[in-house]
């Protein structure tokens, strides 16, 4: 186990180094770094100072060193638009995105698993067929269009829910979040549902497949023969077996959800990282783009690492397969 974790850590470190090199050369080889880190309206003295500070008058390998040291110190230039350090700006916006993403994942579990279990338990019923047809639509519908239609129906036509912004924030245990006020929850409802839609469909399909696979198995017959109630067989015995693939896929999907938050945040004007990066691309606010790049790369490497380790804890076969490969 320890060997596996050490190996995975080393792999992640390698990926991180490769990605930092890619970002560095992407920024420094394609464009002029001075252009990227210094605002276009800066005067000559300001430019010189920035060049010194960023070490741009040094040879290229030393520049990479400066880049890494600066990045580690959390200094990747100031945002042209907000005039605060770009990393700080992104870290400010991160909680909103994480809040939206975690709500979306929660929704996909809370809605997806019961629907999927029902569809797998009674595959021939009309309700199950409707559930499955809807889940195909959930796969094929472009997220951004669904978002617009949600706004059209629930915000414009019915007027039930607000369509933009985060609403009032409440504070609880030192965390500021929309989850703690009614107004915030109302604002959260549509974006979270929009972001969750794809994963709801995914969880429905996985759960249904697991249900259909497990129901005819011997352990189910045995549990029934023991005289257990149908409820207990389905919700305890079968459920436990369905959960393994579902948990894994949900873990892997967290990264996807954070990435797709870009689209949802833009539509619902949700003040998270995703909206920030789109605004920065449109405003050519390059320090923010570079910082966003590095932070998401690190985030994804951490997520992948955690999922891999958790997976190997849950399922020892993975560990063995990996050890045998080399």
């Amino acid at each position, binding site marked *: 186990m320890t060997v596996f974790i050490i190996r995975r850590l080393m792999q992640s470190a390698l990926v991180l180094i490769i990605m930092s090199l890619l970002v560095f050369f992407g920024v420094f080889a394609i464009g002029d770094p001075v252009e990227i880190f210094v605002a276009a309206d800066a005067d000559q003295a300001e430019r010189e100072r920035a060049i010194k500070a960023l070490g741009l008058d040094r040879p290229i390998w030393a520049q990479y060193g400066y880049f890494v040291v600066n990045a580690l110190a959390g200094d990747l230039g100031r945002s042209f638009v907000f005039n605060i350090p770009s990393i700080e700006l992104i870290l400010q916006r991160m909680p909103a995105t994480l809040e939206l993403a975690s709500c979306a994942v929660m929704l996909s579990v809370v809605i997806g698993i019961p629907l999927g279990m029902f569809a797998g338990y009674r595959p021939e019923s009309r309700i199950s067929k409707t559930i499955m047809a809807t889940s*195909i639509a959930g796969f094929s519908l472009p997220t951004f269009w669904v978002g617009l239609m949600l706004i059209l129906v629930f915000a414009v036509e019915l007027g039930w829910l607000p369509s933009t912004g985060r609403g009032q924030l409440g504070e609880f245990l030192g965390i500021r979040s929309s989850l703690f006020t009614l107004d915030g929850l109302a604002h959260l409802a549509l974006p979270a549902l929009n972001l969750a839609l794809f994963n709801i469909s995914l969880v429905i399909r996985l759960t249904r497949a697991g249900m259909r696979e497990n129901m005819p198995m011997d352990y189910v017959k045995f549990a029934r023969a023991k005289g257990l109630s149908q409820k207990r067989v389905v919700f305890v015995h079968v459920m436990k077996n369905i959960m393994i693939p579902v948990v894994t896929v949900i873990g892997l999907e967290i990264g996807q959800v954070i990435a797709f938050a870009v689209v949802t945040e833009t539509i619902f004007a949700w003040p998270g990282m995703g909206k920030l990066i789109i605004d920065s691309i449109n405003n050519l606010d390059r320090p923010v783009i570079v910082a966003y790049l590095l932070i998401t*790369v690190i985030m994804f490497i951490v997520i992948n690492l955690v999922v891999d380790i958790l997976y190997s804890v849950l399922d020892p076969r993975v560990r063995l397969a990996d050890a045998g490969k080399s």
Partner: protein
Amino acid sequence: MSGPTASAPPTEGGARVETPFRRFVADFRESRVAVGALGVFALIFAAAMLCSLISPQNPYDLRQLDIMDGKLPPGSVSGDGLVFWLGSDSQGRDMVSAILYGLRTSFLVAVTSGVLAAFVGTSVGLFAAYYGGRFDTVLMRMVDIKLAFPAILIALVLLAVLGQGVGKIVFALVIIQYAYYARTVRASALVERRKEYVEAAHCLALPKSRILFRHILPNCLPPLIVVGTIQIANSIALEATLSFLGVGLPITEPSLGLLIANGFEYILSGVYWISFFPGLALLVTIVSINLVGDHLRDVLNPRLQK
């Protein structure tokens, strides 16, 4: 997948020999849903390709537009007698025409990037499987790293660095998609490489390139076709999403994503049709491709074959 059917005995009367292709067509026709979806897709594709001939106006020729016709609801008649069956956008564009032109761009981008990605990915996968060893490890690790990051993130990053443009979005889509082809081809090429017919080809001292492309590749095609179909649908959706976000196609190109983004401004005032109909067109296209792809997977899967 190879061999047995090619030499199958002729059916009654010996008139029709069952070739793999004929069997494939017969299998495909078994699902009415898939045939219907293929029909719908063919119709949309043809209409989009012939858009300059069949659409009522050229929505990107500014001389044909009249701002007075802007934001008319579906079914209204324009100043010069043209009926806007699906309404008009803020600049007085007929939505039917705009959608057809947008679809044409979507197809061109998706198919071009799909073909290029298939070419790059197939080559990478074939070489990795055939040469193996360290070469294989390095190539596949690159693919693994790429697949660890979501497609939309990679596209966003590339386009943020490169800027907008048709060529750039095609490039981004190729980078995103090649990994799927590479993985698929490598997996089936690894199996094929160990079969007797490859050994036979080696004994005949055929050149390596011939063995790779004429012997191994044709036997890796079935899964490649399935991946290709699904990837076309995905890249249409991704291109529309990127254009919607304003980082994909430039405003001068007709695009469904941009149309929907333009309509977004007016949706709060109840002008729904500018966003609704392009999205519907996108949805029908993607669903029909996915249905065809789903059925292709069943038909081409040797494990499910009778």
